[in-house]
């Protein structure tokens, strides 16, 4: 479990039913690729990344992203979605070590 991992998401508070809106997500994570070497020992620093991102709305999958080591530090994703009823947009980031980071935002129809 990593301390101080704080996901941040930008989601509108209300959306027009059936109309697409933009969602942005950011999580602070080093995304250690496994390619870097410790400058002193020469040992490879082991890989440790977020490898999966999932967004669900009222429990239904919205978007799923399979992530490899080439995604930058502090992974950023932007996508476009629509809803037809109010509810909760939930986000999950899964770390190589099994940790899961979560956040969610309610969206109203308006």
């Amino acid at each position, binding site marked *: 479990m990593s301390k101080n991992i704080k996901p941040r998401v930008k989601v509108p508070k209300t959306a027009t039913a059936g109309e697409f809106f933009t969602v942005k997500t950011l999580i602070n994570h080093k995304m250690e690729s496994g*390619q*870097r070497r410790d400058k002193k020992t020469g040992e490879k620093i082991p890989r440790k990344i977020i490898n999966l991102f999932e967004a669900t709305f009222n429990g239904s999958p919205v978007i799923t992203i399979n992530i490899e080591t080439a995604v930058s530090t502090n992974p950023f994703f932007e*996508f476009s979605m629509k809803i037809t009823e109010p509810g909760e947009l939930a986000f999950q980031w899964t770390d190589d070590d099994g940790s899961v980071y979560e956040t969610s935002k309610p969206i109203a129809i308006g």
Partner: protein
Amino acid sequence: MNLSRRKALAVGGAAATATLLPVNFAFATPEAAAELINEFTGGSAEFSDGVELTAPEIAENGNTVPVSVAAPGAVAIMIVAEQNPRPGVIRFNFTEMTEPKASTRIRLATTQNVVAVAKLADGSFAKTSKTVKVTIGGCGG
């Protein structure tokens, strides 16, 4: 004597701004990228051009290169970087709730082709690629 040689190498290594060891490039080939694409398409080699890849022509910092993909009718879009030590970059899996497009930021080790492949709802595939020039490599941290 051994110590000072190691030190000299370390200093030389530090002087090079990209800390990625060249030996990694030996394993990165467009063939490895092609294999990943093959896995994604199940062997199909027919591609339309129905996918758009937006990436800068010149990436000043290979550690964070903004890219966007879009493909009307796509259920999934994958991105590979042909000259990265590991060519697989990301795969977006869409649903009926999403528009088939997304943006992110990626690492590019060196100037190379970035390839986007889209799997469309009708079972066909689309592919496009862009050459991105990288001035500071993004895999060595």
